[in-house]
């Protein structure tokens, strides 16, 4: 039982004045994911059969390392926005908010783990 009138609900849950920004972020992250994806494919094609030292040499190269961190950043940003839409479309009720927070945690965890691995390969002095 809710004690708020429909008008109060509308006032409370109306436009957050940030919808356009989110829509735009989806488009920008999507466009930036094009070069990021091409970069990862170019990189991935070279990997089969290489030894560990050859792989670390390529991944640790300054240009590749910076490219990887940029690619991880735009792709994880895009994934966060996309998964948020999926959760908001299909999940209703009590599990919605925890899942939305879990989405942010997932992205933060794997983005930072990936970026940390690249930094370690690049300037970790192995």
């Amino acid at each position: 039982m809710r004690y708020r009138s429909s008008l109060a609900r509308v006032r409370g849950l109306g436009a957050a004045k940030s919808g356009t920004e989110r829509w735009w972020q989806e488009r920008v992250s999507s466009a930036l994911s094009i070069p990021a994806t091409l970069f990862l494919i170019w990189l991935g094609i070279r990997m089969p059969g290489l030894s560990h030292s050859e792989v670390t040499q390529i991944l640790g190269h300054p240009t590749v390392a910076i490219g990887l961190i940029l690619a991880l950043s735009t792709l994880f940003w895009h994934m966060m926005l996309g998964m948020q839409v999926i959760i908001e479309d299909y999940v209703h009720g009590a599990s919605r908010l925890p899942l939305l927070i879990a989405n942010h945690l997932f992205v933060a965890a794997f983005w930072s783990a990936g970026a940390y691995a690249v930094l370690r390969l690049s300037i970790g002095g192995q």
Partner: protein
Amino acid sequence: MPEHFQRPLSPHLQIFRPMFTMMMSIVHRITGAALYFGSVLFVWWLTAASMGVDYFSFVQGIFASWPGQIVLFGLTWALLHHFLGGIRHLVWDTGHGFELATVEIVARLTLAGSILLTVAIWVIAYATKG
């Protein structure tokens, strides 16, 4: 007005005859979700490379196994399908390509392109294997 006033609902997916463009839209979302979880494998591989030769060999062994290769092949296709479908969406966002015939043709080209490019990438990767 009661809180749960029974308003007429818009008909949802299951009431429509499945159409190709509709399936492509659904697959776009499914591939996006698959790539979300597939990103864990990529970060795992990067982490393994940073942890030294022993652990890297262990992870490479898993990825080089048959199940590993099938998963990576599937993710490559998901990536290209979502990549081409995403470009299609960006073009739509500019207001172009909405004619029905164009929509149908481009949807078919997206699917064909995603399969062809996936095979091409794997052929190149295996052919140039060091």
